[in-house]
């Protein structure tokens, strides 16, 4: 049930989003090969989510940050302000949306998305996980595209709640988008957060969850089951809808299901090997991907992706 099969005529933005999704995958695969390992599957499952959000859904200003990230200047409390990575998403003014990343190990996908959307120079991605760079493997709030420090999972939605409530109090029209992984639904804090979002009727909060069905040790259903996610969320007072997480139209359309007085959760069911079929057989062990004997095959596949991508 992917977009390609819906039979609809793609309009301009869909083409852009799909090209960007392809670019996110392509760039992450290249880095995975170059660095002999990376969080590749996260880019594969989330490529359309991120591409659609940046292309069609989010209302963001132009990047305020240098295209090539300068070296890390310090940490908050020591000459540096909090949340500087968000400068890549533009000005934090009243009408603009915010985009908060929760699962910080998706950083590579976020960086690739910034490159694809022209918010960061490809040279930024080359800094990935190098000494003294802000382009960290696990993003923090100085990292391009990150407003929060969320590598300890489950804290972003609560912080988003605080931000969204502050914005409501101030009467701002901009919304607060959060991107989450499904493993984070196992954390109790996530449910405290949903409960509070509903209690404060924060319908300016929209959460996209990459339901790739996997976590470090394997399938979520085998490690610690989280389904039925929609029923859990509805019980906690949110609106929850399920979409094909590789269908850009469905992803963009999802926000129309927002109900007044309720936070919206878009459950994006995805495939963690999407776009790189050779990874299918490795499932469910795709949390961190390193090519070994199959590196040549992957190189060849990258070459074919590069051809299609540029």
């Amino acid at each position, binding site marked *: 049930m992917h977009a390609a099969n819906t039979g609809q005529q793609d309009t301009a933005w869909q083409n852009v989003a799909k090209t960007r999704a392809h670019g996110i995958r392509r760039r992450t695969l290249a880095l995975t090969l170059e660095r002999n390992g990376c969080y590749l599957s996260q880019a594969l499952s989330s490529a359309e989510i991120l591409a659609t959000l940046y292309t069609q859904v989010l209302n963001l200003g132009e990047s305020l940050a240098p295209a090539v990230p300068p070296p890390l200047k310090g*940490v908050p409390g020591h000459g540096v302000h909090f949340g500087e990575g968000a400068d890549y998403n533009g000005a934090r003014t009243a009408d603009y949306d915010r985009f908060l990343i929760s699962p910080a190990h998706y950083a590579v996908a976020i960086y690739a998305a910034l490159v694809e959307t022209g918010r960061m120079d490809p040279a930024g991605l080359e800094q990935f996980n190098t000494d003294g760079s802000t382009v960290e493997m696990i993003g923090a709030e100085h990292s391009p595209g990150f407003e929060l420090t969320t590598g300890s999972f489950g804290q972003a939605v609560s912080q988003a709640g605080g931000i969204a409530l502050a914005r409501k109090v101030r009467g701002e029209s901009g919304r607060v988008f959060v991107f989450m992984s499904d493993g984070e639904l196992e954390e109790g804090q996530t449910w405290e957060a949903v409960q509070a979002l509903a209690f404060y009727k924060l319908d300016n909060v929209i959460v996209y969850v990459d339901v790739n069905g996997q976590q470090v040790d394997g399938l979520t259903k085998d490690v610690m089951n989280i389904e039925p996610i929609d029923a859990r969320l509805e019980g906690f007072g949110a609106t929850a809808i399920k979409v094909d997480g590789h269908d850009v139209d469905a992803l963009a359309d999802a926000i129309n299901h927002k109900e007044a007085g309720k936070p919206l959760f878009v459950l994006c069911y995805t495939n963690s090997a999407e776009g790189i079929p050779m990874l299918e057989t490795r499932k469910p062990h795709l949390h961190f991907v390193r090519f070994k004997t199959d590196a040549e095959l992957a190189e060849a596949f990258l070459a074919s992706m590069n051809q299609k991508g540029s």
Partner: protein
Amino acid sequence: MERCSRVHARNLVRWAKDKPEVIVFSGDLTGSVEIAEFRDAYPDRFFSLGMAEQNMLSWAGGMAREGFTPFLHTFAVFLYRRPYDQLAMSVAYPNLPVRLFGFLPGITTPGGVTHQAIEDISVLRGLPNLTILEVGDATDVETLLDVVQGVNGPVYIRMLRGDIPRLFPQDAPLVFNRARVLSEGTDITLLSTGICTEEAMRATQVLREQGLSIQHLHVSTLKPFSDSQVLEAVKKPRYGVITMENHTVIGGLGTAVAEMMAENAVGKVLRRIGLKDKFAHGSSKQYLMKKYGLDAMALVHEIENLTSKNIAISEDDLAAVRLETQASISASQLEAL
């Protein structure tokens, strides 16, 4: 000695009047942490976060990022135990101006181990960016808020509620990173915090009559800990240094003093009065202070020990001081937590 009641409740309302950025969060303990008056005075600035402390801490971080200054009020244990990760990552790391008012420090509550914050300073002292304060009397409580609001970053306050003594002149405000010198002396240097200062003053009054010369400082800033007065004080006693705190002897005032002494090669002996690395249990504050040796008598014993002198002070002598000051406590009233 005057005793005052519900000082913070009234003070906060008055102080916050013209500070729209100051908001109060309650963790379902509004009446127990003296913020009912604030709620009634400024309902728009009062937020109920329920009993979900992890969310409350991260939520505070979110609102602080947007320019508000959340004043969280709950029992101390529920600020640093349940939500330590959130305090560390959503508040301390980004160095946000979140103010954490933690009530029921140490063994001031009959609520037992789950409600007694006996190791909060120890847990929090190693967390970068966090400032830690503790109050000891009504003047501290009344003059605290400007100090707190002057800190660029998160602040944890070991707070007192209800009936508290006034030990310090009302016109001598709490000063950041500066101890109060309560007496000068050369035999013993005594550093006390929180409710132990009242106990210590009770003892030093009688000890002075016995000819002991005591340098007594009341410490309210536990982190940073770089007051030059403290350093001077620990260098000078003839017999040694004593710290006295309503907290385990590991990781609190006594430890901060030990660090300062070792860093400065102060070859005096340090004796730490406090809980001896053991959990307590639920009973009255008076009973527990006596049982665990946090009261005036415990200080007398420690000084006897340190000076190898027999000091002729009895519980009765100390009780005489106690009586005068505690006249207004009604012992028959069971306190809600």
